[in-house]
């Protein structure tokens, strides 16, 4: 198993390098002179030249990447133009805020999806199953920002149960923090419910049709025990992959949700940086998002090895 894990980690290195290079290239997608775009039409040639030098745009492409990458290895993501502060520092300040939202959304989606998925798999073709299918089809068609605004309208404008946005840290005001969290969490997590639910239902149905489940039933085990102990354990393994992929959707979704609910995290920083063409900040956040996503999927692959003996004992 160690070998599998080491292989998996080693495999990620070239991909991570390529991801870094692609992220670096974002600024070169800017049509014309990025320094000119950043400073606007009124800037003097001197200031433009100074910024070009600061961004390293006056050097050959590969040299630029080399410098950028070396700095990256030292934890230096450059200077944010909009905030006048190091990008890494700005990210660090906002990371816990976004992590809270993301983790809460993921947990919320699983808490809803797992029981519903199991129920719908074990009660196929009942009205609950039908309803679950319709709802999951609907939720995938509703964009996060529409759901967020509907929730805002219902629970912050009409019934003033929740604040219309904002954030207090858990340390300052635990109750206030939770109150601020609910609407963004539901908005962000609901999109993931349908995907998780369908996967749980499908893999549960598949497992329930397997021979060992029939054996368990035939030897007279209680149906509940068959479902929850024998079947569920194996049904949850493929769900892990989907959860790993959901991390990507949640990172992207956080950009939108944080903007709607004025949640002062990385997503909001990303959107304001993109709007104000703060490319160093955009590069830093895009890179961090990709690494977080890769890390989540690496974690999923590694935990596979723990959960699935077929991988653990595979000599290959």
């Amino acid at each position: 198993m160690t070998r599998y894990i080491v292989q998996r980690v080693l495999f990620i290195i070239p991909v991570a390098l390529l991801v870094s290079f692609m992220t670096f290239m974002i600024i070169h997608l800017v049509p014309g002179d990025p320094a000119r775009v950043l400073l606007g039409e009124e800037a003097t040639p001197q200031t433009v030249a100074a910024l070009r030098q600061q961004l390293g745009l006056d050097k050959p492409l590969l040299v630029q990447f080399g410098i950028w990458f070396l700095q990256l290895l030292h934890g230096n993501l450059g200077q944010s133009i909009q905030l006048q502060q190091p990008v890494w520092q700005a990210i660090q300040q906002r990371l816990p805020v976004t992590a809270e939202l993301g983790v809460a959304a993921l947990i919320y989606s699983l808490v809803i999806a797992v029981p519903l998925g199991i129920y719908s798999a074990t009660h196929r073709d009942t009205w609950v199953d039908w309803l679950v299918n319709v709802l999951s089809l609907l939720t995938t068609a509703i964009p996060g920002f529409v759901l967020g605004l509907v929730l805002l309208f219902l629970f912050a404008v009409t019934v003033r149960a929740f604040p219309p946005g904002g954030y207090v840290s858990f340390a300052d005001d635990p109750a206030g923090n939770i109150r601020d969290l609910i609407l963004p969490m539901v908005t962000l997590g609901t999109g993931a419910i349908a995907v998780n639910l369908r996967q749980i239902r499908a893999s549960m149905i598949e497992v329930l049709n397997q021979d060992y489940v029939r054996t368990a039933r035939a030897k007279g085990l209680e149906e509940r025990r068959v479902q929850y102990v024998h079947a569920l354990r194996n049904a949850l393994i493929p769900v892990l992959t989907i959860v790993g992929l959901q991390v990507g959707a949640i990172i992207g979704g956080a950009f939108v949700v944080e903007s709607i609910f004025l949640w002062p995290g990385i997503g909001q920083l990303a959107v304001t940086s993109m709007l104000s063409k703060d490319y160093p900040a955009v590069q830093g956040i895009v890179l961090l998002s990709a690494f977080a996503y890769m890390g989540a999927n690496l974690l999923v692959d590694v935990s596979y090895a723990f959960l699935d003996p077929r991988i653990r004992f595979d000599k290959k």
Partner: protein
Amino acid sequence: MAIQADYSEESHLKQMKLAAAVPWYVRVVRAFRQDPRLWSGVVLLAFIVAAIFAPFISPYPPLAYHPAVAEQGPSLAHLLGTDALGRDQLSRIIYGTRISLSVGLVAILMGGLVGTLLGMLAAYFQGWVDQLITMVVDALLSFPSLVLALAIAAALGASVINIAIALAIVRVPIYARLARGQALQVSAQEYMTAAVVAGTRTHRLLLRHILPNIFSPLLVQATISVSFAILDESVLSFLGLGVQPPTPEWGSMISDAQTYLSSDPWMMLGPALAIVLVVLSLNILGDALRDRLDPRDRARVTAVDAPQE
């Protein structure tokens, strides 16, 4: 669906004759009865017609503003109300259909074309070509797709074609992976060996022998993908990184409505419904299409199961 498939030539001919005897409209009615999901295609068709004939259908010009009737709810004069500048919401939604459908379609066409080509090349040439393409595909898939699309769109600058490019790039790896897997299977078939031995040229092998045989799953993926591209496009415009005002576009219309959420909640209804309807009917149609075109896939993986995409 428990009918045993009969592939004998005799049965095939019989079916052909039978099919020819039944007029097309009866077959259409039959198909709709068999699979009510096809009705979603009608909804979609309505949007396509609205997009094409927007100038004739719209009750008002989409940019004409009348401050006197600003921020109104639905009425007989303005079926879906008016926005903050007194522009007719229904007319703007009808014109917005043009942007959403065309960006979605163009993005999928570009992404699908490039991705399919890359996937086929990887499967056909193998060796370092395959390794290189697979590596690029893996790297592209390492980015959360929306994040990458936003960053590319922000760098390229907001315009309809740039958004389509950004949305196409994030979809390239999905098609590349799918096409590569399918093409690998096809390449292992005997008729491919026969074609190679017969001295068929590479481009002919790719376009005539491989492509037609991997086309169905790609088409199914494309149908579903269009809905995701439309969703992403509306997100981009909602955040201000997509289509710029005053162009009527659903996402930016909702973004405008956000400001008036408490005073005029009606403003959001129209564009929100339009997005949900289009995406929903594309997803349902994609499911129905998959069942028809891809009989091998009995597992019934549906739109929502497709990870991220």
